[in-house]
């Protein structure tokens, strides 16, 4: 009976090891496919999206009047109209010669880093060419990469201007913070109700004052019947009332008009809440609005880039660490473990053999847990696997050493396991502290290390009290 029990547990361990290290192959369309989930690799091991942001060399066309002032709303003017009005056309670079400085290059890099952090990008590499100002970004490839790239290089220039004169009334300097807010209720323009997404812009002390003055000056006149206020939709519609002579302001992001409006009443709070999209109950629409508002908030919150950048290169580059190299690491680890287990068997004979069987079971379960808990495996994560296997070896060796000292009886096994647990876990409490801390860090190489070791230590704690304990007790039973 004892042998049957031991054999059963051993066979289960062998089975788990086969699944973990070899896989479960099923025929699919004339080829065999492993059904066991693959590891989720970090960008170091998988590959990166390499984006080159070049300092723009392009020119923009501006129309100036006879006094040399820039003409507002000049985009739609034809050459004839320009000539008729006595305007002149000028080509000026987006980035002036004076702006092309190392300080501005560095500031741009800093702002990009801030944006990446605000967008919760948990692993990236950023390189700055201080001679040209070009920036190279290496990002992990996933479903968010494209939207990150489209947002990260946006200049983020915010302006509130007088619609008629194009006088700049407020800029990025007046913004304290920008974030996304939600509100429930029915839309004023539709009969639908649900959640509305707002872009909330909070202004600095000076900005608050300016906003109050502007909202006083650009207040709606009672007879115009204008249908806009500042909390209405602005991203989807241009709401300028061309027929009235009322003074309005235009809000621009990256020189693109977001809205034109006047104010119902003076704004004294220093906050503007702009609805993005309409109130909706549809989750997809809501998610789109949230994404749109979040991008705007991130860009506004992190400040505008001092230079205009253009995406010059955007390609997926595979890691130079190949599958073959990873397999070599795996075989090397297996080799080292095998030598360690042989030493255990030689030193502790039959107990050593059981310890080795138990060790293999833990290693197999460990790699399966890493795969099925979606832990992102980085180079740090691979080191964490090696450290966990080392810690497990120390545990098993300690336990077997204790058993060697005493007669192999059930009571002694219980005592030996208790003592080993106590000694082992007291010694690794600092490691546990570090591991738990690392688990909460939003930087993939670190969290990968933390998560892998967390599962490893948790498994050591649970596994030996159940499997190793059972194996040794069955062997000790008569």
């Amino acid at each position, binding site marked *: 009976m004892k042998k049957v029990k031991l054999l059963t547990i051993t066979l289960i361990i062998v089975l788990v090891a086969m699944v973990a290290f070899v896989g479960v192959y099923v025929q699919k369309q004339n080829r065999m496919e492993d059904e066991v989930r693959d590891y989720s690799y970090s960008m170091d091991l998988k590959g990166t999206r390499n984006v080159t942001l070049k300092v723009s060399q392009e020119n923009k066309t501006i129309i100036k009047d006879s006094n040399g002032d820039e003409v507002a709303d000049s985009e739609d003017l034809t050459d004839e109209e320009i000539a008729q009005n006595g305007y002149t056309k000028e080509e000026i670079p987006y980035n002036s010669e004076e702006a092309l400085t190392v300080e501005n290059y560095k500031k741009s890099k800093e702002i990009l880093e801030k944006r990446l952090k605000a967008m919760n990008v948990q692993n990236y590499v950023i390189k700055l060419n*201080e001679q040209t100002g070009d920036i190279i970004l290496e990002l992990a490839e996933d479903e968010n990469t494209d939207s990150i790239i489209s947002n990260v290089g946006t200049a983020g220039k915010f302006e509130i201007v007088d619609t008629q004169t194009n006088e700049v009334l407020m800029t990025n300097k007046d913004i304290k913070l920008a974030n996304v807010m939600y509100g429930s209720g029915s839309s004023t323009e539709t009969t639908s109700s649900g959640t509305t997404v707002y872009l909330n812009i909070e202004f600095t002390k000076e900005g608050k004052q300016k906003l109050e003055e502007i909202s006083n000056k650009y207040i709606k006149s009672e007879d115009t019947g204008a249908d806009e206020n500042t909390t209405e939709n602005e991203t989807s519609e241009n709401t300028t009332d061309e027929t009235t002579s009322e003074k309005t302001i235009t809000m621009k992001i990256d020189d693109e008009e977001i809205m034109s409006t006047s104010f119902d009443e003076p704004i004294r709070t220093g906050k503007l809440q702009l609805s993005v999209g309409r109130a909706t109950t549809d989750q997809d629409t809501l998610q789109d609005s949230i994404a749109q508002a979040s991008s705007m908030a991130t860009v506004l919150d992190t400040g505008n880039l001092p230079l205009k950048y253009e995406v010059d290169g955007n390609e997926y*580059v595979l890691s130079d660490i190949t599958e073959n190299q990873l397999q070599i690491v795996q075989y090397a680890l297996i080799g080292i473990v095998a030598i360690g287990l042989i030493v255990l068997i030689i030193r502790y004979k039959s107990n050593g053999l059981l310890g080795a069987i138990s060790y293999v079971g833990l290693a197999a379960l460990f790699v399966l847990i890493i795969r099925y808990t979606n832990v992102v495996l980085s180079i740090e994560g691979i080191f964490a696997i090696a450290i966990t296997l080392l810690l497990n070896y120390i545990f098993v060796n300690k336990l077997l050493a204790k058993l060697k000292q005493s007669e192999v009886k059930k009571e002694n096994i219980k005592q030996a396991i208790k003592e080993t647990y106590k000694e082992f876990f007291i010694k690794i409490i600092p490691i546990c502290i570090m591991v738990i801390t690392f688990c909460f860090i939003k930087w993939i190489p*670190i969290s990968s*290390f933390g998560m892998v070791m967390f599962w490893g230590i948790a498994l050591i704690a649970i596994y030996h009290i159940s499997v190793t304990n059972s194996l040794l007790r069955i062997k000790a039973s008569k």
Partner: protein
Amino acid sequence: MKNMSKKKLIVIILIAIIIIAGITITLTKGLNYDLRYQDTKRVELYLGKDFKIADIKQITDEVLPDQAVLIQKIEVYEDSISIISKDITDEQKTNLVNKVNEKYETELNADDIATTTIPHTRGRDIVKPYILPFIIATVIILAYMAVRYHKLGSIKTVLKTAGICILAQIILLSLIAITRIPVGRLTIPMVITVYILTLVGLTTKFEKDLANNKKEEK
């Protein structure tokens, strides 16, 4: 006792030599950064067909002898290649293209292929994301050590732990500088591993001291 002191002295001298040598080399020659963190030149070639990295490596070994080269496949179809090296002259680029044309029967023209300058990654940018997590973890660990080993003297334990952890890292970095191991993707995992091993060593020592204290009290 005399023997112990002698052993200790030898260890201290050895550590001092390693640290001094490490600092001297770092100050004079600097650290040997991995190619991916250095100022480099990149050439991208579109082959339009499957290829083996090993074959490209053979070509780069001929064209760029004694130069570290980083070869990576590009895009999902893996039919383009990125070759990065410290420097790629126009002549080397032409040779590279000619040899690739010869091997893969492609018709690439060296004049159409740009050599891109890749800026280096600053050491502080590599280290930055790791500083805060290490500080948080270390502060909590030191607080734990102070409480757990208060019988050995809280301040003494904290100072010893912090000192030995820092010393271990300095020794590691000195060894990296002396041996010219490239500072790259393996450096941080090595730092973490040394940190963990130091902590295990320290707790083992403190537990032993605590047990001895208990015995003496009895």
